[in-house]
């Protein structure tokens, strides 16, 4: 199997390849990093945003990832440890970069993340919260893949049904018969389209995860955490 690992690409000597890969890694990890430093070190939102930008800038400059070995541990544990180390070094040196200076210029919605921090329960440890946030990010990225794949395959209605039935928090959920009326379909079509979308979503999530890991063993280990089951 050909493995297009973002982590391997991020260790490349080619700046363009590295930049593309870091963008992909940041998409999955910026929220976990932002929320982690906000809650663990109790720093202000603007400082956490600066820190997150700088963290991924350092990744781009190959400061961290060159020393990553998937045989020694999970990428997310490694990145969390790197965040701790960077924070402690910054505190020690008091040499924080000014906002926007030398940053990776990633377009990250810190305002939305901050609103989530304010409403989430703080009963769990920052480490557990980092892992949960990572799961959420992989799902969101998987969802974006599903949407793109449905759009390009002329199956947007499959995605819209999935969005309506599986992603909305309506209580009670609409019945398949109600959805059939709403979308102008037969009830059996709703059943089939949702089954297709769920199967595709699972594939998209696992494809996303595969890109974020460097070996089949790491992929299987992480899939077990992500889905709570063995992936064969």
């Amino acid at each position: 199997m050909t493995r297009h690992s973002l982590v391997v690409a991020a260790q490349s000597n080619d700046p363009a390849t590295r930049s593309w890969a870091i963008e992909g890694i940041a998409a999955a990890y910026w929220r976990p990093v932002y929320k982690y430093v906000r809650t663990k070190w109790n720093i202000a939102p603007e400082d956490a945003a600066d820190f997150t930008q700088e963290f991924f800038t350092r990744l781009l400059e190959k400061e961290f990832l060159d020393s990553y070995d998937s045989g020694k541990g999970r990428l997310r544990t490694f990145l969390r440890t790197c965040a701790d180390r960077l924070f402690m070094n910054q505190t020690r040196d008091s040499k924080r970069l000014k906002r926007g200076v030398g940053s990776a210029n990633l377009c990250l919605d810190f305002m939305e993340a901050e609103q989530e921090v304010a409403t989430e329960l703080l009963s769990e440890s920052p480490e557990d919260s980092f892992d949960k946030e990572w799961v959420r990010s992989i799902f969101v990225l998987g969802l974006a893949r599903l949407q793109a794949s449905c759009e390009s395959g002329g199956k947007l209605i499959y995605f819209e049904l999935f969005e309506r039935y599986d992603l909305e928090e309506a209580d009670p959920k609409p019945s398949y018969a109600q959805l059939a009326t709403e979308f102008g379909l037969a009830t059996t079509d709703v059943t089939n389209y949702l089954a297709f979308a769920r199967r595709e979503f699972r594939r998209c999530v696992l494809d996303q995860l595969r890109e974020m890991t460097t070996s089949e063993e790491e992929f299987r280990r992480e899939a077990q955490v992500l889905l709570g089951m063995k992936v064969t």
Partner: protein
Amino acid sequence: MKNLSARVVARLQAEMQLPDLSGTRYNLVRFVASGGMGSVWLA
């Protein structure tokens, strides 16, 4: 893309653990047990 709530993530995770029986003549009844090789479901 908009972020997902913790509740929706938990629901999706649970759904993804269910065996996919679409296209078969079976309906899922309940989970029986799991071990090193996988999970057993009554269908």
